[in-house]
Each structure stands twice: as C-alpha cells, then as structure tokens.
C-alpha cells in the first residue's frame, strides 16, 4: 500500500454488533483526520454453531470478535490506518495478528487520572492498549496531534451501528 498523507493519518474504528436474531455483524470505518469516512467495511452476519460454542467455551467471543471478524475486516481495507480503535475489549485480541496499533476506547466514568500506559482524552475517554504492546500508546499520541477536528472517539462507533442497521434494512 502506498504511503501518503491520508494513509499516514487515517484512523480506524472497529466494532461488532451482536444481533440476537441474525448473529454478529462486524463494522470497520476508516476516517481521515477531519472525521470524514474514507472506507467502510461490514460483514454479513456471523453465527457460531453448537459445536463451536461447546468447544470454544469462554474463548469463543474473543475468537470470533478478534481473530475472525476484526482480522478479516482489517485485512480487507485498502488503507492502513495509523491506529485502530475498538470499543469492545474482546476484539482487541486481534492485535497480535495485525501490524497496526490497536487501542480500546472506554468512557472515563469520572476518572480524572490514568496510569502512564493509558491516555485520558478530553477528560471523558480513556485509551488503553493490549498488554504486551506498550508502543501502541505513543502511536496514538501522535495520531491525536494530527487531528483536524475535536474528535469524540466514541462517536464513530455510533456511525458504524447506524450503518449496519441501514445495511440490515437494505437486505
């Protein structure tokens, strides 16, 4: 993939929507630093079978969310974003399988201080990396410097939810 200004500064947002009727829908939105969409990928519903449920046990969720859906979506994109943000911790386990820094975005819930391996953004969101990948946090700091707008890092997940809902309606 050719390196250019956009690919250097793009940010990915990945979430999985659990629909009780259809299964798991993965959505992956890549934004430029101005918050505009550059790419969007979404999966058809994924539903584990009974054997998978029994044999994977408690590891089924990270396996499906991270290794299967998140990995497939990230590999599908043309642009390699500078960082991929997740709002579900179980999807973060895709990190060892991809070469892009990955962070978990959570609401700060009133916390006003965080350890060094986390970032407090606008006093209402906390970014953390998967243990074992300490370099991901400095990568995120660099991304934050390049932002053109006031970024709300939870908001793009809402866009993904709406888009998946729209795609479902369309189908």
């Amino acid at each position, binding site marked *: 993939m050719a390196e250019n200004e956009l690919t250097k500064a793009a940010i990915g947002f990945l979430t999985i929507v659990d629909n009780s009727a259809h299964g798991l829908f993965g959505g992956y939105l890549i934004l430029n630093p101005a*918050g505009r969409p550059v790419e969007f990928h979404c999966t058809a519903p994924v*539903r584990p079978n009974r054997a998978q449920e029994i044999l994977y046990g408690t590891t089924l969720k990270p396996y499906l969310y991270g290794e299967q859906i998140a990995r497939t979506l990230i590999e599908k994109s043309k642009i390699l974003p500078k960082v991929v943000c997740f709002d579900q911790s179980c999807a973060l386990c895709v990190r060892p399988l991809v070469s892009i820094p990955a962070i978990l975005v959570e609401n700060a819930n009133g916390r006003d201080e965080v350890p060094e391996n986390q970032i407090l953004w606008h*006093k209402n969101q906390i970014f953390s990396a998967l243990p074992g990948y300490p370099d991901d946090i400095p990568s995120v700091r660099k991304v934050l410097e390049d932002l053109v707008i*006031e970024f709300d890092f939870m908001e793009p997940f809402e866009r993904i939810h709406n888009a998946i809902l729209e795609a479902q309606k369309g189908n």
Partner: protein
Amino acid sequence: MMEEIQVLTLDLPKFRVSELALGWNIAMNRPPKVEIRNLSASMRPPQALTVRISPPNISVSSFYFGDPEELCKPNEKSKKNSKENFQTESDSNSNDRNSLDDTSFSGEDFIPPWDENAPGSAEDDTLDSPSVRCDCALTEPSGEELLPDGALPESMDLPEHGDESENRDEMGESEEENGESSLLPEEMTHLVPPKNLIKLEDRLRYLLQPPLELLCTDKNLVFPFVPFHYQWEGVSFLYSRDAAILADEMGLGKTMQAITTVRLLLRNGDIRNVLFVCPKPLVTNWKREFEVWAPEIPVLIIQGDRVRREWQWGLQDIPVKIANYELLHRDREIYAPKNGIPKHFDLVVLDESQKIKNVRSATSVAARNISRTRNWAMTGTPIENSPDDLVGIFEFLSPGYLTSDMKPSVMSRAVQDYILRRTKDLVQKDMPPRLYRDAELFMTPEQQETYFMAESQGALRLTEMGDSITIQHVFELVLRLKQICNFDPCTGDSPKLQRLEADLEEIAASGRKAIVFSQWTETIFRLSKHLQRFGALEYHGKISPAARDAVIQKFKESPDHHVLLMSYATGAVGLNLQFCNYVFLFDRWWNPAIEDQAINRAHRIGVKGAVTITRFLMLNTIEERINRILEEKRALFETILSGSREKNQKLGLTQDEVFGLFKLKSPKGIINRL
C-alpha cells in the same frame, strides 16, 4: 342370535408303532451334527471421531468514499491561489462589496479549492462507489489555515444570533479553564438520507459522515457563533436533499442554515457553483450574511448593464452568485442554452420562494428554465393563499410531483420528506413572547361622516354597475375606505396617528425603537412629517435600493432615530431588525402571512425582551370586517401547514368575501383566488 357351532375333525395320518420305534432308534443313534466356527482372538482397533471446526466463512461488503490516492495528491497551486484570493476577497470587504471592479478575483486568476483541477472535484470520482471526498483540498497537511486572517469583518451585522455570542463566550471560558475539555455538545446532529434515496451506498454516504457539530470544530471552518441544534437539523435536512423547502417561521435563521449547508457542500466538493435568487432589496443582505457565515467563499452579485451581467453570468470560478428575481426574468436569454449547452448550476436556491407560486408568472417560468442539479426553496410562508401555492413551488423543485387536484391529505403525505418547517414556539421555547395589542379606535365625527359618505356612495355605484362590476372596482372602494381610516382627507385628522404619537413618546423616552408598517407610501410620507421629533426614517419602494442599507444602518446605530416607517411590500421580508421591541401595523394587509413576515423583522433570534405588536383598527369600518375574516384565515393557515386533513381552503380573501364586505354578490360563479 344363535350362532351355529361347527365341530372340526382332523384327518391325522395313521402310523404303525413299529415304524415309529424304528425312526426313534435311528434318531437316537445318529451322531450329533456339530457346526464349527473359526474364532479369532484379535480385536478391532478403536475408532476415533474427529470433529473439524472450520473458521466461519465471513463475507465482507466494502464501501470506498473517494480514491485515497487522488485525494492526497498535493496541489500546491490550488491551495496557494485559494488562500491569496480569499485574502483578497476579505480585503475587498472594506470597499464597495457590490462592485465587481473593486474585487480582485477574476475568472482568470482565481482557482478555488473546488476548481475542477483541484483534488476533490467531481472529476476526481474514479470509483463507482459513492464519492465522499475528504477536504484535503482545503486543509494543508501541516494544518495551515487557508482562511483569511482575522476571520470576520469588523462591522458585521450579526442579526440572528445575538444571544449566542454569550454562549460562545461561556464556551471559550470553559475551554481555558479545563484545558483539554471537549467543546462538543451532548446532542449531535447526523446527516439523514432522504427517503427517496434507495441505493445502500448512497444512504451510507450520508450516514457515515461526521455529526455536523463535529465539523464545526474543524480548525479550518470558522463559525461566528455556535448554531442552535435545530439549525444543525436544518443543515442536515438540506445537505442530503436535491429538492427541499426550508419553511421555518421567519426569524429562525433560514439564511444561516442555507449558507452553512452550501459551505459544507462546497468544501466537500459536492457542488461547485450555486445561484441564490432573492427579492432585490435582499441581495445585499445575502452578501452580508455570507460574509458572516462563510467569509472564505467568494460571492458575486449579478448586477449592472447587460454586457456586464452577461460576463458575470459566465464566470465559472465564482462559487456563489446572487441574482434578484427581476434579473432572472430579464437575463433569461443569457443563461438559456446556447448551442445546446446551458449555463448549469449545481444548486439553485430561491429565497422568498412564494414569488414563484404562480406557475404562469414570468418569474416562475424563468426560474424553472435554469439548468440545475439541486434546487431548494426558502420561505416562511409556503402557503400564502391556498395549497396551490405549494404546487407552484414544487413545479420548480420537482415538476409534476404535486398537482392542484390532490386532496390535502395526499398532498400533506407527499411533501412530508421535502418540507422542513419549525416555529419559534417549537424550537425557541425561551424566546421572548410576541404581545399583540389591538388598538381599536373610533373615528372623529368628521372622519366618520367622510367615511360613511364614501362607503354609501361607493356601494351604491357598485350596485348600479350590475353585471359589469369587477373585483377591481370593489378593491378600489376598499382601498379608498382604508385610506380614510388612516387620515380624514378633509381635515387630516387621524386617531391612529394620535395614538401612535402617544406610544412613541414613551418608546423614545425609554430609548427603544419601533417599526411602523403601512401599505401606502403616501401614508408613510404623512407619518414621516408628523414623527420627525422621533427621528423617523423611511424605508419603502421609493427609496433607492442603494440607499436602503444606509437607512437600516442609521436606524440601528443612531440613538436619535426611534422609529422606522416601512411599507409592507419593501420591508416585510429578509431584514433583521431584532433590536426593535415595538411593531405598529398602521393599516392591515390582506394576508396574515405578510403581516407575520412584517412582525418577524423584529421578533427574531437575538431579540431582547418581548415584542409588542400594536394593530390599529378603526371600529365600525371596513378594517374591522376585514380583520374578522383574516382572523378566521389565520386559523386555517395554521391548520393546513400543520398537516391537517382539513378541506382545501383559500387563505386570502376570496372574491365572494371581498364582494361580501359590501353585501354584494359576486357576478360570476367562479371564485378566483386573489
């Protein structure tokens, strides 16, 4: 019932004993027959069941919003020129902004960011997928701002958001105190695709855009004030629609919503040239509003002699042009197709679009002949007289979509996704109220005598005319009587003026300002003479358009001018006079919608305190009769606009109603709308 019993006898063979004994002996002596089987001691190997769990087969749908390679090609020339020209445009603000000669941008050297050679233009769409371009063209990778320095001109009229400056100050303080705190509001406005957009990729194109409040924080996109949430909703509504009517009640900021949407569409590369059409007195107002809400966008007013206008119409690199309705008709040949190629606009916006409600009017025909991709209409009164007005506007927006024979209920459903109308009561719950005060006055005895003589003689003449009577004859009488209600032609007495003077004394003493509306310039002249001690200023059709802005400026800024005398025809639309707390309707207009427009010059966003509206009414006169009918019409107007299933009703005075003012019968069966 008895059943017959049958006795069966078996015929057994008869054996002799010796034979039986022999057989027995043979059987006993015969060796046993042993069947031998081979048994193996070896065991089968155990079978293992292997369950192979293959990973789920995940199918992915992908959408690409523009070619990233194309989007990121540097175009330094474009950016540089943009900056230079924006600066030039900003500098030219201090001069006569209406004169093209005084602005240094030209078709030759101005290369706007939305230039066809610039990245992000329509020609960059190399993918079949929806093309939502990022605004790289306007954003230097280094983050360098391309906007003019000092963001806003100093002497700007900031009419619609007086209160918001306070909000902005508060937010500014908050930013300083909290350092990293987010400036984003809790409630965000997302773009919503219109219902008639079918393709998923087209719908996602809108759904995946950032919330409008987020765009507001773009370092390269300066807003003078933080727009209200309902205004963002209006922007969202317009942004995604090719055909739309923004029908907000007057004073809610339709202008700002349209300009902001155009600004975002231009930045996004969705449109490149826009034509605004408005009534002549409002042209400079639009220009001023652009300077406030989109200072980086070059705006050109089409004006001057024909040669000049022809050149102006042809300028390709000016993204926004403003023309008045009269020019639209006069210049129809200039923008008509030549050699089959029309002058095309990506967007045409008609302000005060009730001007085209009559589909047969020259203005309506001229508007419909403009080659365009998108079209919006803006009006606070989409229905002035009857639902036919709406049909007329839709003939421009989406020809044939509405027809006059549609039932109101069907029409209401059909237009639901095309019209956005909010009222102040709905969105500005904390806005100061409008206080109506009907000044019901008695005529002087002399005036009364003059009035009744004129009425009885006029009515008699009308009766004598028989079948030759026309509505014009009745109108003439109505106007004559209304003028007598204003001033007695014999003595010059006017109880209305006396009452107005008394009120103005108090208003002037408290340092406040008032607007007085009349339908006649003659009345305005007479009032002006009597009200000079209040610093009365005039604003009507006999004041040249060039001088009108100066009148408004003087009225706004000088503490010596407490009253502005305006004609309904000139002053009822588009002006921002929210620094006035008093409105006087010296005489009444035929249509409540026009009166509302007049009142809303003062009762707008930013008004401080309640606005008192005094409606003068002479008792026992034609004014009282007209008022009664108009009140009924006003109720109907609200009903139809709120999507009621009421019967199609005319909202102005019908021919029958006008004749009925004098207890006359309409000579013709057909009732024509006024």
